[in-house]
């Protein structure tokens, strides 16, 4: 999508924030959002759902501050989710609450809340650009992300 024209919000919104879709070798999520901030938030919640056995059981004792800049909305989405994959692998840290602000197609800041877990449902090795496009639909924004697991 053109990086200049991301809408701030949409009147209508998809009923769900994300859904897992079939992929032969890996994992994929179709993600929805009324605007880019919501899309990024739903993407993070969806990815946490892939990694955590029980997302509701993730502790709430750790906070991280994130600031990212990228060349376009798709790259920012990949970088954002890659950040979560990195903390998961290196510190066994998962997050369940995401406060994003100053979000543009090229930049975001966030405070993310979560805690350490002892095991994962899925190990997400990487977030791919495969056929990745943040697209405008009648209901808002949509993107499909394939994860290497």
């Amino acid at each position, binding site marked *: 999508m053109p990086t200049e024209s991301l809408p701030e919000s949409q009147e209508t919104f998809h009923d769900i924030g994300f859904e*897992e879709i*079939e*992929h*032969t*070798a*890996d*994992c994929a999520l179709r993600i929805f959002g009324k605007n880019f901030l919501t899309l990024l938030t739903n993407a993070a919640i969806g990815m946490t759902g892939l990694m955590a056995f029980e997302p509701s059981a993730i502790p709430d004792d750790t906070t991280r501050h994130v600031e990212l800049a*990228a*060349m376009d909305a*798709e*790259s920012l989405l*990949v*970088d954002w989710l*890659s950040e979560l994959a*990195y903390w*998961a*692998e*290196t510190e*066994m840290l998962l997050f369940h609450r995401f406060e994003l602000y100053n979000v543009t197609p090229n930049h975001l800041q966030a405070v993310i809340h979560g805690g350490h877990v002892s*095991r*994962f*449902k899925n*190990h997400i*090795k*990487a*977030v*791919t*650009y*495969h*056929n*990745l496009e943040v697209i405008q639909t009648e209901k808002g924004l949509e993107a499909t992300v*394939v994860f*290497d*697991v």
Partner: protein
Amino acid sequence: MISDHDFKQIDKYLYEIPKTFRADMRVPARFYADPELLKAIQGDRSLEQLVNTATLPGIVKYALAMPDIHQGYGFPIGGVVATQLPDGIISPGGVGYDINCGVRLLATQIEKEEITPYLDDLASALYTNCPGGVGKAGHIKLRPGELDVLVEKGANWALTRGYATASDLERTEENGCLAGADAGKISDRAKTRGKDQVGTLGSGNHFIEVDAVDRIYDEPAARQMGLFPSRITVQIHCGSRGLGHQICSDYVKRLQKAVHQYGLILPDRELVCAPLSSPEGQDYLAAMKGAANYAFVNRQVLTWHIRRSFEQVLAGKIKNHHVYQIYDIAHNMAKVEEHEVDGRRIKVCVHRKGATRAFGPGSPVLPGIYRNIGQPVLVPGTMGTASWVLVGTKESMTQTFGSICHGAGRVMSRSKAKKNIRGTRLREELEKKGIRVRAGSMSGLAEEAPMAYKDVDRVIQVVHGSGIAKKVARLIPLAVIKG
């Protein structure tokens, strides 16, 4: 979707999608299959992904896919693409995130009947000694700066530290070290992910498997390798862990800009690439080689753990429990090689994404012990089915840039496998067949169930029947260790 009338059968096991199929194709796309495998291949988007790779700048001859082809991201898994130097591209997405994911085969002189009473203990020892699962650290604590040495020296680092023998290195692709690796091209984040993971198995489809030789198909080649009927072997399947995943992520991101800079038009952003001669292409190659070297070390340290597990369990019980290496080969890699194209020998960058190098007899890069028989090719099946040892042929050099398949190939998604199969039930079924299972996660086990994969024997028949490899031995599983 690509349908039957979009391709033609040009040989018993070979199909071609002509260059005219899509305007942006630079070469035809070819894939190996039989009628049954063809149905499975058409069940996902892998042929569309294969066609996408036929558009890559600098590609020569054909975009190729092996009979274990299935849908990946960017490249199909089972894909082979060669681009002409100096300006043909190199693609991090074409190598994949698990750089130098590969297979090592170890052999012993132990007979199947001899080991049977100790198999449970051996499986448990392997599970305990070989760290697996997400975020599991290895036993090795690297000194500051030592990871830089490791990625540049590869298996030589393991030799110096006492984790390898000279014979292990001789029987490893490139002697376990790709020259030209540069730790300076690897990010701190990649190093952080990799520093504690040396000698770890990881998760997903990675495994250690104790097998028995079921049948020999090529006795001279098997003898040369040290494979005999009923003897025990061990396979290791894993790669460069978090270090490789992060290097790929870093360069897929960095090269997004290079695509614009060099005016490359790609049908999928995951096919991101840069001319090999460009600074971005050279930097990726140097970093990728570092990850490849890390993976050789990873499998080498796991070999060391396997040897000490055999020692722990079998010392005093089985006289000769020595474990020696047959070969170690990558199946996710890009390498600069010389191949014949249009009657001329030229330098190309061969991307193998879920495909195994399979050089034929006489290749000067093979160790002396294998030069007359061809390169050993190691193709694992699933945890309940056979695995295969083959050798490369002269035909593989002319047809597939010296490449064949890397496994059975998935047909069922992980989510569907988990819905249809219970891990505990699968373990019981495998154990009824006499296959010991040690796994950290039952859902992870369900994802890798045999029914989620194609029939490996059929896949092997296609590569054997098309002449691009020759069967040497079939292995059957006795114990499976998963992270």
